[in-house]
């Protein structure tokens, strides 16, 4: 129960920065410093996940689209950072009070109390902004892989502006901002729903509105594989994401400055790791059994599936339970990938299977181990946030489609987005360079 009390306490602290802690002694400077440090270093690890996404996606698209996907990944992260400063943070956290959204205001630091010796805020306001901002970037990264190889660059980036500036913060306010879902008891420790399935829903609507890549689906229901260009990069990307996840889940303990928080973070790291292991092994075995040979890309997706699955509640489960939760995610992914292909929804990297499907599973699995939560509440959260993101993201995608267009020309798709959109190649060998 101590863990739940700490989480509840931290959640209240998030919504109202200056709150005197009546039941516990005054927050010491050391506690304040360590909490702040936890946000900062965890935030750095989550930022590093952006590199993971970039490498994973670059490895799973064809050579002719690699430079574009690298550009998309780094630029969306820049957009997230800026939008979260000007709009996102306060829209997600300021004056939510059980409502549906925060306030429109540029974020500003508010550490006067701490500078005067009152550390009851628990951590510096900037460290919280930094930590929350990188999560916003992560949600956006999920979309990029799914819609790759046929989306127009600037249309995608404009979508990111809407996702990071409005859609993500508003649904985030319902839970972490202290909004109506939080008051109902919905629990999402590090973002299986708030980050991963949000990215997943936005990717789903995007993939449907965009349509599949040319040649991906044949006339008689045939699915044509379009293999990625670089397995080592995809593997490196998965490892980087795994490492970053320790910050993603660990930092979501929201504290490090007392022994119980430090212990909690340790447990979170263990469960996060074990869930990835469970997911990966389960995927490998499932693929081996189903297809008589295993598949490296499925194993990578399986590890990520395990990580997404545990993200909703990485502190409460026992290590054994964490392995199982991850393993279920790993198996779900193996079925989800061909399932989406059957629906002719072309997901280049398996983002829908990993982030959407396992995000939902992770959220619904919370009541197995975490006290004070219920399936019904979790389901309400999944459905309402899902509906909100599906509707708003569809509006944005369609608005883009009917103004500047979202899909590149057929000719550009064949030539490759690298040449068509940005005029350079990722692997420009065999060029006779002749400067004018």
């Amino acid at each position, binding site marked *: 129960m101590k863990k739940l009390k700490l989480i509840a306490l931290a959640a209240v602290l998030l919504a109202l920065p200056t709150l005197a802690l009546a039941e516990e002694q005054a927050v010491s400077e050391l506690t304040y410093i360590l909490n702040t440090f936890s946000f900062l270093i965890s935030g750095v690890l989550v930022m590093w996940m952006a590199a993971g996404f970039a490498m994973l996606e670059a490895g799973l698209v064809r050579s002719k689209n690699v430079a574009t996907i690298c550009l998309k990944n780094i630029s969306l992260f820049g957009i997230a950072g800026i939008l979260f400063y000007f709009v996102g943070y306060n829209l997600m956290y300021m004056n939510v009070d059980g409502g549906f959204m925060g306030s429109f205001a540029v974020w500003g630091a508010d550490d006067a109390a701490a500078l005067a010796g009152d550390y009851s805020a628990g951590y510096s306001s900037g460290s919280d902004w930094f930590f929350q901002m990188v999560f916003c970037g992560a949600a956006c990264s999920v979309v990029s892989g799914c819609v790759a190889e046929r989306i127009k660059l600037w249309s995608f980036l404009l979508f990111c502006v809407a996702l990071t500036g409005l859609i993500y913060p508003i649904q985030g306010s319902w839970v972490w901002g202290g909004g109506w879902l939080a008051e109902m008891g919905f629990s999402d420790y590090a973002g299986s729903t708030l980050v991963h399935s949000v990215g997943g829903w936005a990717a789903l609507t995007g993939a449907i509105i965009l349509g599949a890549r*040319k*040649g991906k689906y044949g006339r008689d229901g045939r699915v044509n594989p379009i293999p990625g260009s670089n397995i080592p990069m995809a593997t490196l990307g998965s490892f980087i994401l795994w490492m970053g996840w320790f910050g993603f889940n660990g930092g979501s303990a929201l504290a490090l400055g007392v022994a119980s928080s430090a212990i909690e973070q340790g447990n979170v790291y263990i469960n996060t790791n074990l869930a990835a292991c469970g997911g990966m092994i389960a995927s490998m075995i499932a693929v081996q059994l189903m297809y008589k040979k295993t598949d490296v890309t499925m194993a990578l997706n399986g590890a990520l599936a395990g990580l997404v699955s545990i993200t909703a509640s990485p502190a409460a489960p026992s290590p054994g339970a964490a392995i199982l939760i991850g393993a279920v995610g790993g198996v779900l992914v193996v079925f989800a990938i061909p399932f989406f292909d059957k629906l002719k929804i072309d997901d280049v990297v398996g983002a829908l299977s990993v982030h959407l499907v396992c995000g939902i599973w992770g959220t619904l699995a919370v009541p197995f181990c975490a006290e004070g939560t219920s399936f019904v509440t979790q389901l309400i959260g999944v459905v309402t946030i899902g509906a909100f993101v599906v509707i708003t993201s569809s509006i944005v995608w369609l608005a883009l489609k009917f103004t500047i267009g979202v899909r590149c020309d057929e000719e550009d798709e*064949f030539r490759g987005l690298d040449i068509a959109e940005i*005029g350079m190649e990722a692997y420009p060998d065999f060029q*006779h*360079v*002749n*400067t*004018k």
Partner: protein
Amino acid sequence: MKKIECIIKPFKLDDVKNVITDLGIAGMTVSEVRGFGRQKGHSELYRGAEYQIDFIPKVKIELVVSDDQVAELVSNIQKAACTGRIGDGKIFVLAVEESVRIRTGETADDSL
């Protein structure tokens, strides 16, 4: 025996492969090449400096067939690989003097 060499646009490979195998021809060799004809290249900008990309990625298919298959094959390949836009490629037919299957030592039409 004749050798057919075609240079085609890369995304047309599957279509051309299908017309070849539909005619009952058992094998072919494919390579990734770069080249240009009248299509020429285009100029690009890299870190502020302009340069010319002359060589466009293409796919080259080579196969050796018996004389009676050539006419239909060339016609089918041309139809399959054609998009109507410049850069569609070319088909060449060359005479072949001898052909040997390495595994069995068969020669001439038996080796095709």
